[in-house]
């Protein structure tokens, strides 16, 4: 059981499944999923999404941004939603994030509905991702006061810096899974503060290595890994700002 905070910095938590296709994708599938989740997610809308790729072509290196469309089923307060697209399911929770015990049943509901409606053959990728936005008072902060994971600037470089981004990928379970960890500055919304995004994404690297029946064992382990990594990324000073709830 991880720590609980009165002011958690999570702005979004999401669990994403990419499936091995089963029967050919049918446009009726989102509707079938909706029928199974509409009690909790009554609102519907179509949303745009982006996928990017970089390729070398005859005109040089090119970047492509493809626009995709997927259906979103939203809870009445629009803070939680299920997204469905071809061979794709995502369950998102925006701020305020409740607890894992409350988020997990939403994931299970979405997964069961998709599995019943689309009959996928298997799992290609699962990802559990937590995006944290951390606001710290001040115009000039020492990152090491707040973060155990941060950019390292060698002593022969200028020691004051502005925008930054740092990230690593960490293999787990004999490289079956990966934790992607990223820290970057963010746009400031509150005057006299600095804002930082800490993005943790634990995902299945090897397609097919988790069966449809064992998904939630994987998800539970993923959550523990993300929680451990989050705590390892921050210092006690940040924990104090988040106000730990004891007991």
């Amino acid at each position: 059981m991880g720590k609980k905070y009165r002011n958690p910095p999570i702005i979004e938590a999401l669990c994403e499944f990419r499936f091995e296709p089963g029967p050919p994708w049918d446009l009726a599938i989102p509707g079938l999923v909706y029928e199974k989740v509409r009690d909790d997610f009554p609102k519907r809308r179509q949303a745009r999404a982006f996928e990017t790729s970089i390729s070398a072509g005859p005109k040089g290196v090119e970047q492509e941004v493809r626009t995709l469309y997927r259906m979103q089923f939203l809870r009445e307060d629009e803070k939680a939603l299920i997204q469905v697209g071809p061979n794709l399911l995502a369950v998102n929770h925006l701020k305020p994030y409740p607890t894992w015990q409350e988020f997990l049943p939403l994931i299970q509901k979405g997964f069961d509905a998709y599995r019943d409606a689309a009959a996928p053959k298997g799992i290609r990728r699962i990802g559990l991702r937590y995006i944290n936005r951390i606001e710290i008072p001040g115009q000039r902060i020492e990152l090491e006061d707040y973060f155990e994971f941060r950019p390292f600037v060698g002593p022969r470089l200028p020691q004051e810096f502005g925008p930054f981004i740092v990230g690593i990928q960490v293999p787990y379970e004999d490289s079956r899974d990966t934790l992607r960890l990223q820290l970057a500055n963010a746009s400031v919304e509150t005057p006299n503060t600095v804002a930082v995004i800490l993005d943790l994404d634990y995902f299945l690297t090897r397609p097919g290595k988790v069966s449809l029946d064992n998904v939630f064992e994987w998800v539970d382990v993923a959550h523990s890994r993300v929680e451990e990594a989050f705590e390892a990324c921050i210092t006690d000073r940040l924990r104090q700002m988040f106000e730990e709830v004891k007991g």
Partner: protein
Amino acid sequence: MPYLANFQESARPFIPFHLPEQAQWRLESGMVRTDVMNWLDLSVAVLESPEVMRFWQEIGTSIVRTLEFEIRSLEQLYTLRRHAEVLRFLERRPFLIPLLLEAYSNIANYFGPYPQVFLEVVTDPEAPDDQELVAFIRTNLPPDEVLDRLERFDEDWWLEASHKAQGNLCIHVEFP
């Protein structure tokens, strides 16, 4: 190693997904194609390892990352007046973003390539809660020519598309 917020405010937040001005919107295929060789910030990294870029560009199915990406894309096309105010307006009305992206290429069709367009939140002085976003197309064209182009723009695209704005967006012209 101090991190300086002031420096950040004077520069764009570092999000490695800035489309260069030369980016071309291809609405018919829902695709942006751009020559990343012109992408000065990161062209070396791109040339050395596309995988590196893919790593940082992950948007996935995140709602906040998608919104952030769309807003960054908008910022490549439009100039935002009172930046924070426009962002707050758009965050509350995300359905405007795809419309604005579509609008830019239509504006370019009628007012020339790479038009300078400003976005500004305008408040009714007698009803402070009554706000709308206005896109001001800046042009040096003669006024008669501008009116003619604006009329064609309205008839061919905007009158049909404007319902998507749900009364939250106006498009005007302005002269320098």
